């Protein structure tokens, strides 16, 4: 297996390079970067910046999918946390705003985790409930309006920069490092993979699968809440109807592109984030190419299909047979 490890991720990196090259062709200035008012600007930075919400979502989603689950409610959680942040921003301190918004994500994650791990519901169904009801709750918070705010602290979160890097990108990077340190710096990642690989066997081997499942949904909720705050800060307002709409599908797609199987087991945080970047690079490329953005969905559909077919157990079976044949011949 160790010999195979470097090959993991090669396809994703190649795909990203190909898409970047195509982007370079359609827009010659694609790789131009310039420093303005202490912040970097350019298409590449734009890709990173716009890719942040999906990248954050995919960080939580990849853990959930590794336990053989799925979380459809992340878009709705984004709407809830964005609504909370926007309604509190002008009257409360930043700490309160962040605590309330992230706290809401934590509660949502606990709810999902409770349904899946304690009540034993199917993840699709359990998170469908919050997906449907969550947007209603968000609208309840904003009272159906688009809530705007002018709190400079919160605006900085969406539009500021640290050492030239946009704040959202820095946050996403920070979360990637933090999540990576927690799950890969300890046995946690292994236990999560074990839970997804075979929950019953792991349970018998002494893994606290219920706690694992609860924890990943909570983490997914927090990541989604953070993405929601950033999305709200970016547009300086919260739109309960459209914030994070269909982003759960993009996040799942990012995880799948990142090579994590929907059937649970092995996962890779870095590749999931890379998957999010691949999606965003495609989106930006289509925008820059002057094609109508409607092409986005078509291109996405083709990419999903291609990735699926590459990961298909049947096809990899064929590939395995082919390599075995080659080996026996040699």
């Amino acid at each position: 297996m160790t010999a195979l490890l470097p090959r993991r991720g090669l396809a994703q990196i190649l795909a990203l390079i190909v898409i970047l090259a195509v982007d370079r062709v359609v827009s010659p200035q694609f790789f131009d970067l310039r420093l303005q008012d202490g912040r970097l600007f350019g298409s590449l930075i734009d890709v990173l910046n716009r890719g942040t919400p999906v990248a954050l979502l995919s960080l939580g989603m990849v853990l959930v999918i590794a336990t053989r689950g799925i979380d459809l409610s992340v878009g709705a959680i984004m709407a809830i946390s964005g609504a909370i942040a926007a309604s509190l921003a002008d009257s409360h301190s930043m700490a309160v705003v962040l605590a309330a918004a992230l706290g809401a994500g934590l509660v949502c994650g606990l709810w999902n985790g409770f349904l899946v791990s304690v009540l034993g519901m199917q993840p699709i169904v359990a998170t469908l409930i919050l997906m449907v009801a969550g947007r209603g709750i968000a609208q309840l918070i904003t009272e159906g309006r688009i809530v705007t705010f002018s709190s400079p602290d919160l605006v900085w979160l969406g539009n500021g920069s640290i050492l030239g890097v946009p704040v959202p990108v820095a946050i996403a990077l920070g979360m990637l490092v933090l999540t990576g340190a927690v799950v890969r710096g300890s046995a946690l990642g292994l236990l999560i993979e074990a839970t997804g690989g075979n929950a019953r066997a792991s349970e018998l081997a002494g893994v606290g699968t219920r706690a694992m499942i609860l924890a990943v949904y909570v983490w997914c909720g927090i990541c989604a809440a953070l993405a929601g705050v950033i999305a709200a800060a970016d547009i300086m307002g919260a739109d309960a109807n459209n914030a994070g709409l269909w982003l759960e599908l993009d996040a799942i797609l990012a995880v799948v592109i990142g090579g994590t199987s929907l059937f649970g087991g092995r996962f890779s945080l870095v590749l999931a984030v890379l998957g999010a970047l691949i999606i965003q690079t495609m989106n930006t490329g289509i925008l820059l190419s002057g094609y109508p953005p409607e092409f986005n969905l078509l291109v996405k559909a083709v990419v999903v299909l291609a990735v699926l077919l590459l990961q298909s157990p049947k096809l990899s079976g064929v590939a395995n047979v082919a390599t075995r044949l080659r080996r026996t011949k040699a």
Partner: protein
Amino acid sequence: MKGLPPVLITAIVLVAGFALCAVQFPNIASTRVVGNLLTDNAFLGIVATGMTFVIISGGIDLSVGSVIGFTTVFVALAIERWGVPPLVAFVAILALSAAFGAAMGAVIHVFDLPPFIVTLAGMFLARGASFLLSTESVPITAPVYSAVSDFALRLPGGGRLTAIAIIMLVIVIGGALLLNLTRFGANVYALGGSRVAANLMGVAVGRMTVRIYMLSSLLAGIAGIVFSFYTSAGYSLSAVGVELDSIAAVVIGGTLLTGGQGSVIGTFLGVLIQGLIQTYINFDGTLSSWWTKIATGVLLFAFIALQQGLVALARRPVAKRAGAVS
């Protein structure tokens, strides 16, 4: 008979809900409101019937909303811009959507992929294709459309049973018969119970998978035509999120999302419950539309928790018996 108890509960919820609404707003208990309820939810009833088959067989179809959107745009453009006779346009789009569903089913079976992600790709594909056709709303002025909109059976009490409501009722009844009385229906249940066991029993799993998704997409196509009758227009953004509404209707109707159990009639009642919530909110006037979503979510939770309880209850005596034997 095994599908009865959850359906009964759904029916009780519907009747009780309707009674409560009628107590508060006596006008709700009229054939006029009931007729509108059926008309407004006709497309949802049709598409949810197809979804019931998919979910009982253990799958899921996320593409139906997009197929409806594509159908409305295709039909509108075919009739208004390309000068195709409406009937030919209908046949063409139904053939197209059936082929689309068959292709998804084939991909799911041949490559052994999760239906969730395959139909997600289908959802992107159909929605993207409808954007490509046209991004603006195309009004349909063909005489057939005004004829169908005007047609209605008069009900006692001033209600109107419109053509699209009749289409929906026919499809629901046809779906129920197909599921309960034919070999195809029995195979759908078998597939949802266990694919492996169904295969060993001699069910042609591959052919069944293709046919089930074909049926779902075909019904989504019909729902799209009905939707275009309903709005007299084709719009690529129509029916966004209908896949969720129809999954919710199926679950509220007592169908297990794990597959193997459920009924079309339950789904129909689930559609009516969702429509009733909407009607109540319209009558009340002070409640905002987002309460629909919250109420649907609460109902979803209640029904799933109930099912979970029933399943646990059903398993317990079996475990005891097994324990006694060993």
